[in-house]
């Protein structure tokens, strides 16, 4: 018995999904008229899709909503971190003969991975990177393509988990910078 090849099956899925343009669609429609094999395959795909309809969410309790209190913005904690801790971490971030922190303070702007931030933004970011949290390393990889400026812009209003994820990214970017 003849079998449908992968390309044809893909085409039929695209046909079902409405992805095809008029020309392609009429080609498939013509094939469907001519070929019982095509029709069987299309029916089979339709049946599969129909079967998934039974997987519906049960009745769940409504979301208990009340306006939450203002979140604690943890990163300010590092901005006002004790001097000793700051110095220790600045030591870690030595770059081009200067610490990155010092460089940022002297510069008009800061570049990280080709992305430009204002001096103050750069200092805040670098301060953020000073945080150390082992758990962060296990989280996220969804943010790896973000630019530092995007990250900076997102810092306001983050909840704790998102904040952790972004800090992890910043740490990774800093390591990348050091290596380069």
């Amino acid at each position, binding site marked *: 018995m003849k079998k449908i090849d992968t390309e044809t099956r893909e085409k039929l899925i695209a046909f079902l999904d409405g992805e095809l343009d008029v020309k392609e669609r009429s080609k498939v429609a013509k094939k469907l008229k001519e070929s019982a094999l095509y029709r*069987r395959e299309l029916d089979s795909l339709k049946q599969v*899709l129909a079967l998934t309809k039974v*997987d519906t969410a049960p009745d769940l309790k409504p*979301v208990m909503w009340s306006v939450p209190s203002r979140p604690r913005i943890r990163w300010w904690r590092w901005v006002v971190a004790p001097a000793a801790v700051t110095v220790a971490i600045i030591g870690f971030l030595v770059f081009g003969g200067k610490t990155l922190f010092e460089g940022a303070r002297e510069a008009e702007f800061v570049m990280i991975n080709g992305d430009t931030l204002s001096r103050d933004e750069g200092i805040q970011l670098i301060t953020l990177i000073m945080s150390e949290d082992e758990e962060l390393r296990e*989280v996220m990889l969804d943010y790896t*393509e973000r630019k530092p400026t995007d990250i900076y812009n997102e810092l306001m209003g983050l909840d704790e988990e*998102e904040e952790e994820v972004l800090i992890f990214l910043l740490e990774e970017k800093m390591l990348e910078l050091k290596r380069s």
Partner: protein
Amino acid sequence: MEDHEVVERVKKGQADLFEILVRRYEKKLCALAWRMLHNRADVEDAVQEAFMKAYRSLKKFRGDAQFSTWLYRITVNLILNKLRRGSKLKRTEMDMEQVETSNNPENSARQQELKQAATRAINDLPPRQRAIFHMRYEEERPHAEIAEVLGLSEGAVKASYHHAILKLRESLKGFVD
């Protein structure tokens, strides 16, 4: 009141109005979360948490995308992170008891079997693919919008959707002609 109007008012201090958005989207988010988690307790937690995140991040929502797209993005990312870490989930097992008890008692054993098979088949898809399948097939969202929710290209969304159907077909081949 349209979403964007509610968002603007909440941003301007009418925080209570956020509940309009909660009620408007909770069922949809639950359906999406169910497809990704298949566990009642985890679904309820995830949806609750997603709304909380959305509320707290509302000031950075600039209206470039639709509110619903943004809310879905928050929800899907939150669930993907939870699944990645695993430990924060109450249970990683599927809530098969729910699958069974939610059946109409008049349903045949065959139908129950079918329902469980469908749930398992969907659960066997990778989490992101489950989300794509749900948003495309159940909600009929445009590929472009799904791509925006997930930070993928439209092509990647289409390819993933196709793969999902092929995998489901394989898993459910005993139930189709």
